[in-house]
Structures are given as structure tokens and as C-alpha cells.
């Protein structure tokens, strides 16, 4: 039985889910302290959504146990549902109901006594007031996400689970969205969020990286980057497009990515990187050491799982 640690919003062990003969989540352990923004990352199909659904009580784990907000995942799903807000990956409010009607519906299902006030407040806070009578189905992507966020917050949950809340949303709306999430965290709400955008990784307090149903790295964004052991060099010079395939052929290179007028070469093997760079020492290229991008870090982490490298680091948070 999991020990109930009052400082943790989520504390689950060995969560496993099989669909048919395919194991989608392979025994994940996750500890999320209260009041932080926790990034849940990984490629498509790595098991993020399934893990979240298990923690919400929407899927029954095949193995594992744990607590969410001090409530047992296996036996107290109805109580958990009452106290969390879950924003689904796909827009799951009623497109044929207006913004205000959707919010009123949700508020009533949570037995809110002051439905009108709450809806008015939610509309004002998220800047939806002028769209309150618009049908949800006619909102643009960014506004739909705001409405979905408003809906999953209307009952003031202690824990928000946001599954790709910013997918397909323009940069401005994404920034506004993240500002809102930070405000919530500042008020003490714990936020678990999944994303594909690497720039959003840095806006999380802690992250866990999932690959093929396993957590392969976790910690603060910086420690995860560090433990990947990845080093990167940026190369300026002529005819970089011809150079890129040559570099990719070299042993130990994780990625070669063209970023504007430069080529970023990264590798977890410092010697391999040095050797690669040395092969270019003919004066035509200018090289500078740079921080690896999170994209490269995650490509490296995914690659290690793929090659069965057991030597992946787990940073102490």
C-alpha cells in the first residue's frame, strides 16, 4: 500500500495498462509535489494519455496502485473525479451548446450552488465574456482551449490534468494559456500537463519523459538535459546541406539539425563529437559549443530506449 505523503498531489507506483496483447503503459512511478507545474512528455503513443486516464479513474490499471490527492486510484475514483479537473486532448465539450451553457452544465454536474456567479467569474477570468452566447463549435482553436480550461476549473479543483492543452493553438494564445497555468500554480493548484512543444518544457517546474510506456528521465528541465549527457556544436559555413548527411553517417552522433543558417550537431559521446568536429577543421567552418535543445535531448532519450541502452540517467529532483 502506498504511503500517503501529504506533500504529493500524485503518488503512483507501477501503473500498468494493457490493451489486448499490447502493453501501453509499463509500470510507471510518478510523484508530483503539490503546487507545481509538472510536464509529462514523450512522443505520440508513449502512453501519456493512458497514464493520465488511469490517474483520473477513467481507465482501470491492470497493475499498480497509488494515490491522487490522497485518494486511492483503485477504489476512490468517484472522489478523485470530484476534486480534479481534466482537460481532454480532444475538445470534449458540447459544440452545440453555447460557451455559457457549457459552463453552466459543468458547474451543475459538480453540484455548485452558485452556478450563475461561477460562470460569470469564469467567463471574466478567461476573457470569454463577450463570447458567452457563441456556440462552442464555432470557436477557433485557441478559444476552444480557453473554454475547455475554464470548464475543467469551474469547480476549483486541487489538481489539473491537461492533455496537450496547446496543440494546434497559435503562439500568442499559447503564451496566454501558459500565463494562466502559472497563475493557477501560484494559487496552489497542481498542474500536470502534456505537450509536444519543446519551448513549453522550460515553463514546467519538473518534467518526466515517457518513451514506449516507461519513464526514461525525470527531474527539472535542466537536470534532465544534463543527465542526457548531450553536447552540441553549432557549425557556420558554406554548403551546410551537403555536410549534414556526411555528419549523420559518423558514429555516435545523435542528431544533425539545420537551424536557420547553422547546423547543430549533437552527441552524447563527447569524443565522437570532437572527432566529428575535427574532421571539419579546414578553416572554412566556424564552430561554437551550444546548449543542446530539448528536442535533441528527447531524441537522444528515445534513441536509447530503442537501442535497449540501460544506461539512461535518472536525475534526482
Amino acid at each position, binding site marked *: 500500500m502506498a504511503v500517503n505523503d501529504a506533500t504529493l498531489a500524485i503518488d503512483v507506483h507501477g501503473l500498468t495498462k494493457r490493451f489486448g496483447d499490447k502493453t501501453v503503459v509499463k509500470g510507471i512511478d510518478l510523484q508530483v509535489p503539490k503546487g507545481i507545474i509538472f510536464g509529462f512528455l514523450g512522443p505520440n503513443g508513449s502512453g501519456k494519455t493512458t497514464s493520465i486516464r488511469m490517474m483520473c479513474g477513467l481507465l482501470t490499471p491492470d497493475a499498480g496502485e497509488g494515490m491522487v490527492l490522497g485518494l486511492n486510484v483503485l477504489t476512490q475514483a468517484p472522489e478523485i473525479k470530484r476534486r480534479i479537473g481534466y482537460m481532454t486532448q480532444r475538445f470534449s465539450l458540447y459544440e452545440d*451548446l453555447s460557451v455559457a451553457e457549457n459552463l453552466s*452544465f459543468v458547474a451543475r454536474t459538480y*453540484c455548485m450552488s452558485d452556478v450563475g456567479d461561477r460562470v460569470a467569474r469564469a467567463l471574466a477570468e478567461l476573457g470569454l465574456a463577450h463570447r458567452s452566447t457563441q*456556440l462552442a463549435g464555432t470557436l477557433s482553436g485557441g478559444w476552444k482551449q480557453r473554454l475547455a480550461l475554464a470548464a475543467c476549473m469551474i469547480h476549483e479543483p486541487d489538481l489539473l490534468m491537461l492533455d496537450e492543452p496547446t496543440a494546434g493553438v497559435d503562439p500568442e494564445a499559447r503564451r496566454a494559456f501558459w500565463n494562466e497555468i502559472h497563475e493557477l500554480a501560484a494559487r496552489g493548484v497542481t498542474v500536470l500537463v502534456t505537450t509536444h512543444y519543446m519551448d513549453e518544457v522550460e515553463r514546467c517546474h519538473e518534467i518526466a519523459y515517457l518513451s514506449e510506456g516507461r519513464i526514461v528521465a525525470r527531474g527539472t528541465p535542466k537536470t534532465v538535459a544534463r543527465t542526457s549527457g548531450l553536447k552540441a556544436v553549432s557549425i557556420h559555413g558554406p554548403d551546410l546541406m551537403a555536410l549534414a548527411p556526411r555528419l549523420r553517417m559518423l558514429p555516435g552522433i545523435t542528431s544533425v539539425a539545420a537551424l536557420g543558417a547553422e547546423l547543430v550537431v549533437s552527441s552524447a559521446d563527447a569524443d565522437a563529437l570532437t572527432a566529428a568536429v575535427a574532421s571539419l577543421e579546414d578553416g572554412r567552418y566556424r564552430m561554437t559549443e551550444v546548449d543542446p535543445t530539448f528536442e535533441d535531448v528527447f531524441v537522444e532519450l528515445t534513441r536509447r530506449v530503442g537501442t535497449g541502452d540501460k544506461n539512461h540517467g535518472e536525475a534526482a529532483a
Partner: protein
Amino acid sequence: MSPWGCAWSPLRALIIKEFIQMRRDRMTFAMMIALPLMQLLLFGYAINTDPKALPTVIVAGDSGPVTRDLISALQTTGYFKITGMADGPAEADRMLTRGYVQFAITIPQDFERKYARGERPQILIEGDATDPSAISGAVSAANLAQNWLVDGATKGALAFAEGRPRGFEVVVHRRYNPENITQYNIVPGLIGVILSQTMMIITSIAVSRERERGTLEALLVMPLRPLEVMLGKIIPYILVGYVQVAIILVAARYVFQVPIQGSILLLSAMTIIFIAVNLAVGFLFSTRAKTQLQAVQMVFFFFLPSILLSGFMFPFRGMPQWAQWIGSALPLTHYLRIVRGIILKGSGIGDLYIHLLPMTGLLVVIVVGALLWYRRTLD
């Protein structure tokens, strides 16, 4: 939040939501109102037309002038089209069984003699009553043919017997139809058929639509109990069902001239159970269907036996035993007896509770089944 407010608030939320969606979904709305009207008019008129020139075979035991007059008089009514003479009752019976003819009319051997003596001989009309409306018009026409015959006969060979009461008796055997259904049975029956079809489809798509549009995931993560979800899907449509009942009753009374003998209030009270059963069946299917299309397909698996084995299309007592057993497990069977009883026979609660009990039993079984089948997770 008061505990009382919490008892009703989620259910209220679901009901309000359902009504708003109903109002905005024109297609479903059209289905709820237009479909019953269309069925009513098509079924009602198609089945209630007064068919004429029905194929008839004659078994003539006599061949005198009165018999000839009789045959021509029958033909003059327009209802009988004499297609041939049978050699004997066996042949006539075979033609009837095979559906070659609608009627076999037997004129007995001593018909002329008895007629002349004013002994009112009998003629036998055997009708294929699987389509009951087909024969009722013809049978009354056969009785009218008598007048023709009498008029003709007075001027003819039998004028000597003038002044004595003459005529014949028409004995009718409605074959294959022991319940002796009249054409009025169809329209009241349509109340049951239309209700069960639209109500089942409505709830079955109402839940699978949530699944298909992705809203079920949000619904499942809300603190809603299965019973609340089910009632939230059933209560709004009970009202819709009553709108349909009202439409059909008005049409039955004023378009099809069906006399309503019993209490409309009693009918409404008993109809609520029937509507609820059908909504619950739809809900039951929707807990399993992955898409709206699948849900509708499942409904037809239930609807088809309902229409065929409930006594709507074929007389219930005319069906083989196994079909009657299946029929007894269908809510429509019991409701048809209730609705026909109230509208046509003016039955009261005392006559009808024996049909109400099995229907209520089915409601309980289906509701419990649906609740057990309803999954609170996405597993």
C-alpha cells in the same frame, strides 16, 4: 452546496443540456416529429385503403338462375372478382391457403330450392383475413348483394314466390385470424410501433453520439452516477414521446376516424411506462455501441421482432408457440394490448393490469441491465 441541491443538480444539468441540444439539432428534431407523421400517414392509409376486386373462387353446388344472379350480384358490388370455379372445397381451400384468392365462396347444393321457399339458405364466405382490412369491406358488400338479388329475382323466374320473405344468410369465416382484428387495430397499434422505434433510436444515438464526438470522456470524468446519466437521457424524451402520442391520437380520431372508447388519461399513464422501457432499451444498446450507426443497427435487431412478433403485423394467437414466447418478452406486445384495449374496447385498469405487469417487469430488467452494463470508465 446543500445535500438536497446536490441530489438534483447533476440530473438537472443533464436534462437542461439535453433539451438545448434537442432544440439545436434540427435533424433529430425533424425525426421526432416528422417521422411519426410520415409513418402514420403511409401505414395508416396504405393499410386502411378499401381494397376492391379481390380474387374470389366459387364452389357452386347449384347452377340455377338464382345462383347465376347471386354470382353476378357479388361481382357487381365491386369487391369480388370471380377468377374461377373450384371443383370442390379441397381445391378452394388450397387456393386460399396459397394466397391465389382472397375469398372462397361456397354456394350449397340446395341453395335454389331453399331460396325459393324462403328458407334463407346460407352461403359460406371464407376470407383470407391475414390482412383484416381487406375482407371487412367485402363481407358487408356480400350482405348488400342480397338486395340486388332480391330485386332481380322478383322480376325473374321466381316471381311466383313474391310476397314471401326471401333471402340468404352470409356465414363468414375469417381464416388465419382468430383474434378477428378489424381495420381499427392498425392505427392504435401504430402508437406503439412509432413510439418504440423513435424512442429507442433517440436514446441509443444520444449516448453513442457522446462517445463519437468525444464528449463522453468529459462526461465520465464528471462526478455523475450511472443512474443520473440514464435518467438524464430518458426524462427529456418522455416528453417527446408524449408529443408523438398526441399527434397520433389526434390523427387517429380526426384523420382515420378511429373512435376512442376508453380514457385518454389512463392511456397516458400507461404509456409512460412503455416510453420508459423503449428509452431504456435504447440506452442499453448505446452502452455497447461504439458509433451512432452501430446503435441504430442494434435498435433494428430489437425493432424488427417487435413489429413482427408483437401482434402488430400478424395476429398474436395465430403465431407458433415459440414466436409467442419471444413476443411475450417484447414490450410492444403488451403495450399493443393495452392501447387497443383502451382505444377500441374501452378497457379500464382492471382489464389491463395483466398487460401492465409484464411491461413493468421488462422495464425493471432492462434498467438494471443497462446500469450493470454502463461503464464508468473508458476501458
